[in-house]
Each structure stands twice: as C-alpha cells, then as structure tokens.
C-alpha cells in the first residue's frame, strides 16, 4: 500500500512578531517548487476568502497576508477546540530575479497559488558549445 499517513500540523504562530495590531498571526504552511522558467508557491490559508488575501513583492521580499473573518462564528459557543484562528502572515526573501510584473496569484479553497516567473537573467539557459 502506498497510502500516505496524514497528520494535522499544529498551526505555527508568527515568531518574534511585534506588530501594531494585536492578536495572533499564523504562518501558512507552504510548498515552493522550482521550474525552469518560474517558481511556484502554494500556501494553506483555510478560512481566507478570495478577496481577503494580499500579496506584495517589494525590494526582493515577498509578503503574503491573509485575513480571516469572524462572521462564521457569530452566535456560536465553543465546546471543544483543536486549533485557533487568526490572520496569516509570511515573508520570503527571493534570491532569484523575478519578473514582478507578471506574478500570477490564484486563491481557491483556502489555498493561495503564486506563479513567480523568473526574469531573463535567472532563467537557466543552455549554452551551445561549439566544436572548433
């Protein structure tokens, strides 16, 4: 059997934060894959709607912010909980040259998918070796 064991990961709070806004921020779990012409990033942000995600790239730092709403919890009374909820925040320093004008962002079912196309300089290029 190739069945994979899946376990719930405890949500990680943003470490060493000192923000002007109070409350817990969580680190979204991410996968980052590198392709020949792009880098793709997926971030798990359950509870964040399509309209409530903000992605910025400034001076080589990629910032992801996802905002949750308390709407779904209105008039509920907790009995038992295993996870807390809060806004998501994560930053990455990109050590690749990224074409920041063509970044693709898609938010679907609580997962953010980012496509960061590599700039001309960063694309792997095959260099023709001529035989003389």
């Amino acid at each position, binding site marked *: 059997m190739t069945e994979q064991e899946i*376990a719930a990961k405890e949500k990680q709070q943003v470490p060493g934060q000192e923000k002007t806004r109070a409350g817990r921020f969580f680190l979204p779990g991410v996968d980052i*894959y590198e*392709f020949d012409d792009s880098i793709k990033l997926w971030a798990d942000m359950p509870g964040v709607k399509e309209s409530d995600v903000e992605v910025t790239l400034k001076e080589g730092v990629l910032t992801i912010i996802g905002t949750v709403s308390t709407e779904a*919890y209105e008039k509920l009374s907790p009995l038992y909980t295993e*996870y807390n909820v809060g806004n998501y925040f994560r930053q990455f320093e990109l050590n690749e040259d990224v074409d920041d004008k063509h970044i693709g962002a898609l938010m679907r*079912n609580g997962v953010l998918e980012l496509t960061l196309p590599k700039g001309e300089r960063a694309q792997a290029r095959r260099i023709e070796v001529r035989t003389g």
Partner: protein
Amino acid sequence: MALLRFSPDLDPVSNLLTLQTELERFLRNPAIGLGVSGPGDFPPVNIFDDGDGVVVMAEIPGMDPASLNVSGQSHTLTIKGERKRETVGDAAGYHRRERPFGEFSRSVQLPDELDLDKAAARYEAGMLTVRVPKAESAKPRQIAVNPA
C-alpha cells in the same frame, strides 16, 4: 454558556481577539469526549454549540468539494477524503514542502441527542462546516399546565 457575539461597531481586530480568547479557553476541553480520534488527527476540528445543535468545523484547505465525504452513523460523524498535491511533475526541484497530503478519515463522536439524518455540510475557503441539529425529542418543549 459563553456565546460569541461580534459587534459590527467594533473593529475586526477586537472581534478576532474575542474569538481567539474563546477558542483558547476550550482548547482540548476534556469535558467533551470525541471517541477514538483526538488532537493531531487530520483534519483538526473545532466543535461549537449553536443553540439548536452542534457545529463541527474542520480546516481542510485545497479540496475539491465533490471529493469530500461526510457521513453519519449512529452518533458518529465521519469526514473522509484525500488531499492531493498539485501537479508538479516537471519541477526542477523544491525548496519547501510543509503542507500535508494524503488520505484521511476522521470520526467524531457527538452527543446522543443529535439528529445526524438532518445534518448539513458546507465547504468554503478551505473550511468544512457541518451543522447537526438536535433531535426533535431533545428540544425543550412547553408543557401546558392545566387547571385542576
């Protein structure tokens, strides 16, 4: 019973702080027995009382709603599915792999007086919400007092 109430007059941060404090208070509340599953099992669940029954919420981002299987038998609610990784076949490599994938099946034992036949499930923004109403027989009813 602490009921979560959020005021539209308050800013969202204050509302979120209220919610975070309440969720923290009931973390792994030993007064509720879930049966065989517990913390660490996927997906993580939060359970609430909505006055008319129970609301079970689970964080399962990135699912196709059609592939989520929610069922009830006797007093047990079961959430099943498979979380599949996106297609990365032609990737040159990866830098980070933190997200959990695989098949899961989680059963949660609910109090007796609920009516699982009338449960309704909804999946939005990676959150599964299952509402299970109280059984008719468990609802409070007015008893007429007849004069002698």
